[in-house]
């Protein structure tokens, strides 16, 4: 490389996919952007995004969420980004790249062009509605095609094919998978494993056809296409997604005359250099020692080596492990090392096959039984991490290796995180070892988040999250760090513990609780938290003398304080349904008190700018007209949004407004660790956005689908499908249990989404508790909810009928004039703070 004071060399990266972007990060880390002029060309419209989690695009993550970076990041480091500009040729004589927009000189060039989905050359395979699954644009095309389709077929039953099948299912298509081989995922699993996988996937309603070679595709009778197979069997479908493997996008290299593999791929050496040393290749386009690596972790390692090569370093690419742990259509599949046992002469096998529980585990061990060479798991990946550690670190197996795969054998050796050597790789995406994690901890990272930030561990595919946590926990413990979970300085308890104390001891006031279990006066952390616990347990009016000093000002005055000290008023409008005359009352009240009026994001009306002393009069008028408080101020049930549903909408299949109102009236007044939002949509078009709510309900032909733990706000999270086709009563029973279980076990100010992410056992556990009643808590949770419902009263109505409570609604005890410092001005015909 030239010295940095000379004219900077031109470095061009072709391809802005996962690996191309990682290369940019690695270059920046090495300061290469200071001595290279770096340009990046990407054919797609989008900046590099997380292709591994591409399918989440159908679950509500948009292009921005999936993006791995920002244009600002590139600009900040002086890197020129040419998106939507495909490179069409490399001119090695003049050292120039050609695109439709121009020619660009390079000194060093990196190919990171990835691969493309292979579409078998079947007559008719290029018909309209025959699609692939690789890019965001592909997914848009699938979504669009699915609108007018009822059935879909995926050609290819490998990893990506099953992922595509799941996506089609999610788009409400009747889905089938057609596989050429005699079983699903032929690369990862064997006959038994494949059969189990088939059973499980068929149970989800996805049709599985193996041993099927598609001969041609033609016009169908009942659907858009008809697929014709080798034995003249047929299958009709509206939409076809090809997922029959990937091929390297090596056309540029081929044209340029670089050395290529027999079956494609740009040949690279350990330093990622091609046969022309000024050109490097990384990621899925590169062929190293005869192999192409179709996973992101090896690509990242190539990117590292390439960055080092470009900066004069020594790092080399040394191959990568292709072990994988997946959840496909909810089915665990794991493959470690030589999972089939056909690459290791003399290897011995152990198998455990439980057709009842639908679990299959296989070990491939060395002939002396000491080393793990490979493993295959279907139906349960619980042992994956342990097996992976034995495999990757060459640890000696226990005397009886079978104990690793047999169920519940007494004393089965659990490989604890402290048994791992420092060289053990914990996160393969970012190549983080246990040693590196210990170093980060010693350098002052004292919790999981800090370790993640410092090492990047678990920020790739996320597959190592559980292992990372256990390593971090055990290392912190070894260093004597006690993770302090006290809620605040006044109570050495978590919120969950306080909740149990309150329930078990029947404590009904903060005074009693702090006297028995805490010390001091309390504070603005523990007081509202305890107030919320007391309300969830007993639902006494928060305006009672014992409770009122515990509340945030918003709860105290049952209105939301605004930045100038005035309040907003939000009456409940269940389900967003309101009569014209009630709407008129809101208008009249707003006008009379000079309140700024706005439709909220929660399908109701907010009246802003009320002075403290005006609140009772305003509420008296609202209650007179039949309104109730909307709890906009509380960590409590907020709104149940609805769409218009079957009563009016041509597509509605259930009365979503009716259900929304029923839910809102049932849960109004429920106080919880954080606010609760609901929505009910009348059909799968989802106009009420139920999948972004704590509790989302979507109508189906047969009832209701229940989604839980969604979130909008700062960190949006898609709700997860919890149960399907429920009748009204079951729906409500599940929601009762779900909410009360959350109220019981969540941390203070923890929305259901975060609670769920921290819930050990995840969604499956939650289903067990709520649906299967595995803890035997079902009745109790329902009873508790009934208590809250029975004790509901509109807090505002209660306050208005009690002169003692109303005394608080004075701006000043000794002066009836309004606060002279509240100054307003007019804008767009309404008043606002000056």
């Amino acid at each position, binding site marked *: 490389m030239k010295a940095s004071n000379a004219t900077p060399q031109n470095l061009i990266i072709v391809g802005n996919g996962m690996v191309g972007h990682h290369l940019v990060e690695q270059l920046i880390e090495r300061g290469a952007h200071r001595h290279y002029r770096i340009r990046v060309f990407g054919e797609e419209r989008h900046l590099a995004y997380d292709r591994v989690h591409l399918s989440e695009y159908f679950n509500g993550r948009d292009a921005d969420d999936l993006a791995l970076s920002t244009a600002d990041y590139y600009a900040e480091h002086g890197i020129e980004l040419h998106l939507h500009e495909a490179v069409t040729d490399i001119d090695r004589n003049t050292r120039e790249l050609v695109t439709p927009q121009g020619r660009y000189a390079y000194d060093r060039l990196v190919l990171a062009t990835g691969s493309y989905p292979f579409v078998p050359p079947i007559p008719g395979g290029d018909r309209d509605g025959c699609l692939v699954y690789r890019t965001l644009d592909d997914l848009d095309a699938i979504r669009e095609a699915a609108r007018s389709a009822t059935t879909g077929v995926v050609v290819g039953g490998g990893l990506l094919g099953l992922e595509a099948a799941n996506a089609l299912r999610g788009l409400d298509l009747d889905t089938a998978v057609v596989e050429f081989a005699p079983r699903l995922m032929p690369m990862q699993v064997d006959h038994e494993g494949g059969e189990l996988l088939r059973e499980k996937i068929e149970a989800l309603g996805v049709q599985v056809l193996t041993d099927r070679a598609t001969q041609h595709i033609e016009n169908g009778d009942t659907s858009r296409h008809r697929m014709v197979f080798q034995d003249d069997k047929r299958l009709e479908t509206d939409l076809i997604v090809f997922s029959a493997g990937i091929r390297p996008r090596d056309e540029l290299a081929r044209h340029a005359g670089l050395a290529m593999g027999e079956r494609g791929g740009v040949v690279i050496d350990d330093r990622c250099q091609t046969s022309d040393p000024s050109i490097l290749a990384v990621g899925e386009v590169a062929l190293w020692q005869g192999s192409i690596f179709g996973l992101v972790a090896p690509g990242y390692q190539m990117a590292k080596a390439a960055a080092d090569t470009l900066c004069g370093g020594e790092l080399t690419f040394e191959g990568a492990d292709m072990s994988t742990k997946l959840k496909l259509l909810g089915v665990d599949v794991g493959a470690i090392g030589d999972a089939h046992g056909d690459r290791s002469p003399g290897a011995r096998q152990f198998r455990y096959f439980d057709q009842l529980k639908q679990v299959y585990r296989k070990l491939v061990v060395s002939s002396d039984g000491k080393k793990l060479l490979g493993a295959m798991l279907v139906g349960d990946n619980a042992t994956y991490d342990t097996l992976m550690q034995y495999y990757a670190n060459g640890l000696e197996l226990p005397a009886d290796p079978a104990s690793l795969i047999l169920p519940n054998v007494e004393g089965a050796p659990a490989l604890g995180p402290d048994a791992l050597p420092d060289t053990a790789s914990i996160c393969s995406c970012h190549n983080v070892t246990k040693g590196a994690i210990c170093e980060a901890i010693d350098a002052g990272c004292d919790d999981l988040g800090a370790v993640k930030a410092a090492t990047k561990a678990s920020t790739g595919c996320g597959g190592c999250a559980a292992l990372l946590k256990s390593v971090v926990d055990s290392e912190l413990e070894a260093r004597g760090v006690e993770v302090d979970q006290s809620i605040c300085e006044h109570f050495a308890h978590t919120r969950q513990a306080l909740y149990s104390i309150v329930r078990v001891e029947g404590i009904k006031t903060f005074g009693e609780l702090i006297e028995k279990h805490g010390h001091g006066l309390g504070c603005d952390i523990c007081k509202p938290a305890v107030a919320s616990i007391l309300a969830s347990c007993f639902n006494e009016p928060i305006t009672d003398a014992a409770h009122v*000093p515990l509340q945030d000002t918003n709860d105290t005055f049952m209105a939301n304080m605004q930045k100038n000290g005035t309040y907003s008023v939000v009456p409940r409008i269940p389900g967003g349904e309101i009569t014209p005359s009630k709407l008129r009352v809101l208008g009249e009240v707003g006008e009379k008190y000079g309140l700024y009026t706005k439709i909220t994001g929660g399908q109701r009306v907010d009246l802003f700018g009320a002075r403290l002393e005006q609140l009772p009069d305003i509420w008296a008028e609202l209650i007179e007209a039949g309104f109730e408080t909307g709890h906009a101020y509380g960590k409590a049930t907020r709104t149940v949004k609805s769409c218009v549903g079957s009563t009016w909408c041509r597509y509605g299949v259930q009365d979503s407004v009716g259900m929304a109102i029923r839910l809102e009236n049932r849960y109004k007044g429920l106080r919880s660790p954080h606010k609760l939002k609901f929505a009910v949509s009348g059909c799968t078009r989802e106009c009420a956005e139920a999948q972004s709510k704590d509790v989302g309900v979507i109508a189906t032909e047969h009832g209701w689908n229940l989604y839980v733990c969604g979130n909008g706000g700062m960190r949006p999270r898609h709700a997860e499908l919890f149960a399907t086709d429920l009748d009204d009563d079951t729906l409500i029973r599940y929601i009762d249990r779900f909410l009360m279980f959350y109220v019981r076990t969540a941390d203070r100010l923890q929305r259901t989404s975060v609670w769920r992410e921290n819930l050990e056992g995840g969604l499956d556990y939650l289903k067990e508790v709520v649906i299967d009643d595995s803890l035997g808590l079902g009745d109790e949770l329902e009873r508790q909810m009934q208590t809250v419902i029975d004790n509901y009263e509109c807090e505002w109505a209660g306050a208005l009928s009690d002169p003692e409570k109303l005394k608080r609604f004075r701006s000043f005890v*000794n002066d009836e004039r309004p606060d002279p410092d509240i100054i307003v001005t007019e804008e767009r015909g309404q008043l606002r703070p000056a």
Partner: protein
Amino acid sequence: MTTATAEDLITSNDWQSLCTREDLVAHSGIAARIETRDGPAQVAIFYLPGHAPELYAIDHHDPFSGANVIARGIIGDVAGEPAVASPLYKQHFRLRDGQCVEDEQVRLRTWRVALRDGHVLVQA
């Protein structure tokens, strides 16, 4: 110190009566307007029955938001010192001397306050 002895009250004449004991809210605050030598002010009166002292008078004006809201904050203690948390942006102010816990530069005014014959008096 914010509480005066009965003897003080008799000898000084700049004590103003604001309200009665019934206007106070236990473990919480109320606001009142007072006249001071520097002009009109708004004062927050906090009442901690059973605590010594049990009455505090401190600025009702919140310097961080510019709004008059301190009396509507939650009372608690920070390391044993009674304090109020501003309801808007949650800074804590010591009731004893008005010092802001989060910002050394900021301190609210405090006044002497006392209960006498069921009346709440402030010296300003």
